């Protein structure tokens, strides 16, 4: 008799039959019946009607039957909460059973029943089981705490289960330790600021001991937990590394990867000249290589991780190039990843080998793989200069195959090679031009057009070639259109006499017949450039291009650091930070690598990038696909050498340019700004800037005349602040990118009882800015400008101005989140811009905030304890007196001081501009850099902000 028969009965009356069988006297029959019920449950049939009958079977001494009933209960308790209560007594009884298997089973199942009523009954049995003599029961109970926390977090905290769980970290049984760590890690995730997993050298030591004894899965929990620890110094770091290294030879790849993560992270702290550092690097290679002999699924995941590791520390695998050579029977996704890593590892030492491989790959069957292989050859040429010549000849061989997609890819990469090694391989242009007709992909067409434009002077029939593309201009993709426009302009600047007609044709196609704003803009720019000053145009368009960098597709350094901290997880497969795909990103802290030892010297070898957050400026432009011209527009516009009248050759164009400027543009801008400007009441002079004669708009191209004015306006800034009052440094509120060239940075300060909003306005656009106005949205404390924004003179390009705006606190009030958030609108002649900033709440602390002692005492007692909030300020090295005077400068007044056991307690009061009083107790232990602040307030929501101010004032 087999279980499969349970799946076959579907007739009516089935429930009725089952009911009868469940109530049978015979144990075997009961068991069979419960099995049938569960079988129906698995395939999705509703058997909840049998709940009472199944629960009746629960009281049995047959473990198998009991397990089946428990399985059923887990599934249906939620839909039948009242019935589930019927089962509670049996659960509680089972938790006391002499058989540990039954105790564990009961506590495990109870935790899975997500019914609030049950949780009340769960607490007592759980407490007992956490202290059970049998480790199997304890480890099950540890997990149960996590389950309960999921249902009712408050209850878990109130009952003190978290503390018991912490104690279990020191349990004698490694399984219990592992489960306690797992449960705590998950609970800690939902309380990002809590100190739940308080890792210190003692607990770390315990974890490392348990690591050697527990199951492979427990080892993963513990290693992942270790990865979150930051060792105090390089010695501790080394000793942890030494104890983790043996895990690298574990057969379970997940254990290996978790160990690699710990080592990669802690290695950051080791000095590079240490012998051990070198040893560690050598030890990391074999386990990573071993991963490649796993099944393709694991190989793929491993390769994604190796890709990250190679970017961070290429030295680990530099001798292992061969293992990344593709096998003919690898799945395509594995092949592509391997190829990527091969390029990253390519160096002068192994380039010949790599190139030979790539050439083989380029003749394989799979189109995607072949394309990537061809592209890889180009990347080798760019990365290893010595190989460039061989790469180019390999590419030419491939072009000879005339296989359509191979030719196209080859042309795309040859374009990059030209950029890296200008004037070196132009002899191949003739071969390229032969293939012009076979190109049907936009990227390849664009690359070919770029080559023709760039080397127009060497190609006799460049004009014919480009003209042939022009015929179908409107059918081309934007990429090709933009490239064609630029190429023809280049051609014109090189051979002006023969190609005038062609350039006019393309300019009018781009500006008049196209709906694409990018194309039109670029067209207008060229047109204007050519019409105003062809010499300048030549300098701009034919300027020397910045060199492209050797590495392409590198992951940005800060993201890479974060991903290294997530080795072995989904983040490392997606190459995205967890916050990008984990729901709610609750309390997701961006993990960073610890700084290296001897932090004083920041001289790091360049290949390892920056250690802790100092963003490296990219050494050169990384070519992004399909935007060759991007860099062109970013070039500094240098003033022309001669400013004489434009040569007659372009006079015909001049007229057209004028027309265009006078035409649609300004009305367009006017329209756009109307709905936005209305709010600020200052629509008056809109569009004026654009109505100005063309000379004004052309100004930025001729010379930044107004640059020198900066100094004059600088007078307003830098007015000395009264001593003591803390004002945070200016931060950028509105970046120029979002402000159409207007950048606003600012801060807040309180001077002589008046709140000041201090801003620096910088014009990073090319035209003059005028008509500034400012308005605030309603906010928590009624902040509003007390006067208009005083920008009296127009703001010229590249000029900045300091403005100080007095604020009142009588404006309309609306509670914001966060409380100190302020939404601001700034208007100028160009547009209205919105940004939000956060002000330090200490700006609102008024001067008469010193409370009478008696009143203080009474108020302190009067405010309920629930309103009390406690915070810690770390790393504060002030004496209590220095702290007191520092705080006084920001209107935090000390009323009394008491010293108990070497601990100073300062009692302080603060009054906010809206009359809210905040009472504080600041505890300072001499020699201890951690201050404790206890805040009491009738409006407890301000506590967090007030605390932030405390911290800011004390630390500055």
């Amino acid at each position, binding site marked *: 008799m*087999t*279980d*499969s028969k349970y799946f076959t009965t579907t007739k009516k009356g089935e429930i009725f039959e089952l009911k009868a069988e469940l109530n049978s006297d015979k144990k075997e029959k009961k068991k069979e019946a419960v099995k049938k019920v*569960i079988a129906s449950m*698995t*395939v*999705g049939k509703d058997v909840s009607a049998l709940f009472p009958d199944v629960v009746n079977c629960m009281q049995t001494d047959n473990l*198998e039957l009991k*397990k*089946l009933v428990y*399985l059923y209960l*887990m599934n249906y308790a*939620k839909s039948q909460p009242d019935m589930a209560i019927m089962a509670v007594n049996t659960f509680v009884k089972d938790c006391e059973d002499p058989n540990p298997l039954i105790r564990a089973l009961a506590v*495990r199942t109870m935790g*899975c029943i997500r019914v609030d009523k049950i949780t009340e009954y769960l607490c007592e049995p759980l407490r007992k089981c956490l202290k059970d003599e049998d480790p199997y029961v304890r480890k099950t109970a540890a997990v*149960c705490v996590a389950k309960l926390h*999921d249902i009712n977090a408050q209850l878990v905290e109130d009952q003190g289960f978290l503390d018991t769980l912490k104690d279990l970290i020191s349990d004698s049984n490694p399984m219990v330790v592992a489960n306690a760590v797992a449960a705590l*890690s998950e609970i800690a995730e939902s309380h990002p600021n809590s100190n739940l997993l308080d890792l210190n050298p003692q607990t770390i030591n315990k974890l490392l001991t348990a690591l050697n004894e527990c*199951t492979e*899965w427990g080892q*993963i929990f513990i290693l*992942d937990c270790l990865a979150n620890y930051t060792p105090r110094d390089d010695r501790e770091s080394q000793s942890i590394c030494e104890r983790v290294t043996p895990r690298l*030879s*574990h*057969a379970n*790849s*997940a254990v290996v*990867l978790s160990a690699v993560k710990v080592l990669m992270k802690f290695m950051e702290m080791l000095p590079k000249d240490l012998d051990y550092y070198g040893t560690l690097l050598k030890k990391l290679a*074999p386990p990573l*290589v*071993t991963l490649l*002999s796993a*099944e393709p*699924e*694991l190989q793929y*995941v*491993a390769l994604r991780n190796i890709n990250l590791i190679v970017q961070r520390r290429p030295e680990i695998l530099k001798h292992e190039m*061969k*293992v990344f050579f593709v096998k*003919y029977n690898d*799945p395509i*996704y594995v092949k592509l990843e391997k190829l990527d890593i091969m390029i990253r590892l390519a160096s002068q030492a192994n380039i010949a080998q790599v190139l*030979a491989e790539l050439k*083989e790959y380029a*003749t394989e*069957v*799979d189109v*995607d793989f072949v394309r990537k292989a061809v592209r890889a050859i180009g990347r080798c040429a760019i990365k290893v200069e010595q190989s460039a010549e061989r790469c180019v000849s390999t590419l030419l061989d491939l072009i*000879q*195959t*005339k296989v359509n997609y191979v030719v196209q890819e080859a042309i795309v990469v040859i374009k990059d090679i030209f950029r890296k090694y200008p004037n070196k391989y132009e002899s191949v242009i003739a071969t390229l031009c032969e293939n012009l007709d076979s190109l049907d992909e936009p990227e390849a067409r664009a690359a070919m057009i770029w080559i023709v434009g760039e080397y127009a002077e060497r190609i006799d029939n460049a004009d014919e070639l480009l003209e042939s593309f022009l015929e179908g201009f409107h059918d081309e993709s934007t990429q090709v259109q933009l490239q064609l426009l630029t190429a023809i302009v280049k051609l014109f600047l090189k051979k002006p006499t023969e190609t005038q007609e062609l350039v006019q044709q393309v300019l009018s196609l781009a500006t008049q017949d196209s709906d694409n704003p990018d194309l039109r803009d670029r067209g207008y720019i060229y047109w204007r450039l050519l019409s105003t000053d062809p010499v300048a145009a030549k300098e701009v368009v034919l300027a020397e291009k910045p060199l492209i960098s050797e590495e392409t597709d590198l992951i940005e350094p800060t993201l890479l650091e974060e991903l290294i901290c*997530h080795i*072995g997880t*989904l983040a490392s*497969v*997606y190459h995205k930070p*967890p916050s990008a*795909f*984990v*729901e709610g990103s609750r309390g997701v802290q961006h993990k960073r690598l610890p700084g290296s030892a001897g932090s004083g010297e920041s001289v790091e070898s360049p290949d390892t990038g920056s250690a802790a957050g100092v963003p490296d400026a990219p050494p050169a432009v990384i070519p992004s696909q399909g935007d060759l011209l991007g860099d062109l527009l970013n070039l500094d516009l240098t003033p022309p050498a001669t400013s004489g009248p434009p040569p007659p050759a372009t006079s015909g164009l001049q007229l057209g340019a004028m027309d265009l400027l006078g035409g649609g543009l300004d009305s367009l801008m006017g329209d756009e700004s109307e709905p936005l400007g209305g709010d600020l009441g200052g629509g008056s002079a809109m569009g004026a800037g654009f109505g100005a004669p063309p000379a004004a708009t052309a100004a930025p191209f001729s010379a930044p005349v107004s640059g020198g004015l900066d100094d004059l306006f600088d007078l307003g800034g830098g007015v000395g602040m009264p001593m003591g009052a803390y004002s945070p440094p200016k931060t950028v509120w509105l970046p120029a990118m979002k402000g159409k060239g207007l950048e606003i940075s600012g801060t807040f300060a309180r001077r002589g009882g008046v709140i000041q909003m201090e801003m620096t306005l910088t014009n990073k656009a090319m035209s003059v800015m005028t008509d500034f106005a400012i308005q605030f949205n309603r906010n928590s404390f009624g902040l509003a400008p007390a006067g208009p924004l005083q920008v009296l003179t127009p703001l010229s390009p590249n000029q900045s101005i300091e403005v100080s705006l007095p604020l009142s606190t009588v404006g309309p009030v609306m509670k914001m989140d966060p409380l100190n958030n302020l939404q601001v609108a700034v208007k100028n002649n160009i547009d209205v811009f919105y940004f939000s900033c956060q002000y330090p709440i200490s700006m609102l602390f008024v001067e008469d905030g010193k409370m009478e002692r008696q009143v203080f005492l009474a108020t302190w007692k009067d405010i309920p304890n629930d309103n009390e909030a406690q915070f810690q300020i770390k790393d504060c090295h002030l004496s209590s007196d220095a702290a007191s005077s520092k705080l006084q400068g920001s209107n935090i007044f000390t009323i009394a001081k008491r010293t108990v056991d070497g601990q100073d307690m300062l009692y302080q009061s603060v009054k906010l501009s809206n009359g809210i009083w905040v009472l504080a107790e600041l505890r300072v232990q001499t020699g201890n850099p951690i201050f404790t602040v206890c805040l009491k307030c009738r409006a407890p929501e301000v506590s967090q902000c007030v605390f932030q101010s405390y911290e800011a004032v004390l630390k500055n």
Partner: protein
Amino acid sequence: MVISQLFILSSRGDHLIYKDRGEADRDVIDTFYEKVTALKGDQPPVVMNHKDLHFVHVKQGGLYWVATTTADSSPFTIIEFLNLAALVKDFCGGISEKAVQMNFALIYELLDEVLDHGYIQTTSSDILKNFIQTEAVSSRTFSLFDLSNVGLFGAETQQSKVAPGSAATRPIQSSREQGGKSEIFVDVIERMSVVIGSNGVLMKADVEGEIRVKCYMPNCSMRIGLNEEFCIGKAQVRYGAAVRVDECSFHQMVQLEEFDSHRILRLCPTQGEQTVMQYQLRDELPAPLPFRLFPTIERDPAGLLMYLKLRCDLPPKSAINVSIFIPVPKGSVLSQELSSPDQNAELQQQNRAVVWRIPRFSGGTQLSALFKSQLDVPALSSASMLELGPVALTFELPKLTATGLLIRFLRLTPVQPGTPQRWVRYVTHSDSYVIRI
């Protein structure tokens, strides 16, 4: 670190087993099935996501074994955990849709112990045995006949990489009750990756190997002796015919006290199947390559003339299931002459490759084949010559290890009542054997 849901689906998408942490939504099972069946060949199937749920799955025994997670969990952990399929196989005696359906109560019981609130507890069958109450229901009675072809491995092993060993289809627990036959299988399985350059130079020769133990005996402890001259790493050079590997890793249960001195692995295998040792050898083979190819390729106006001589250097052993894939230029039409009738060859148009199959190839012999390939393209350009090759081989070499690793002895302690059957099997597969021409 946490698994939200675990489910097993049949290849048609029927729900067989389902377990979750309590908060999850069952509808995603169908979402998963839609996604996995719509997957194209070139997309990595490993991790898929739907909203903020991430699926990790493996396909084993024609079933989808799927775990989902909402956190930034480790796909390594999950994939390793989904090796659960092997555990289920050990307990139920096999994995198939039928076996899973028949044993659903047992599987649920297993899952309960293996996975608690999404935390993996243990996957060791020895520990689990103590907790499991339900009896396995075997889909097919165990017959001794299955054991008769020990030493020969199943044919589809190339892909699955694991010799299925037809002896292995019985539940581990049944031995407890039946007091049945005590048996131990020790398999040494190696996979070769070789690249031979067009000039005949060996460019790459790697071997990955593993020792697998399949045990049908309760509470036994065993000692496996390897070649005494076995050495690890490049530094260790010994005289004589040393068996060398570069890297070696062991299962957690293996005790290595005697390994350094006598090359003996001591272990108490849990019932069921496990890999006790894995090793790699890179860029160095102790023996000559098993296959050498001597191609002669001529271009004539009509097309290509390929005369291939393939030599097998394995005396006195022989290779089986040898296939040779020869990519040829697009648009070829084939005519062939083979040296013996049991071989065959065909042109696979979609892969543009000739496949030449040799069912049995004795060591020390040489076979040849003549392929005439006519192109419908008028002139054979030098470019289409690039499309020719490289040649890839697949094969099995039974009773042979490429590294020379041998099991010296297999001793059981304590001495078992009755005579336990002990089997040692060797096989070497091709993983990727490429000859460039």
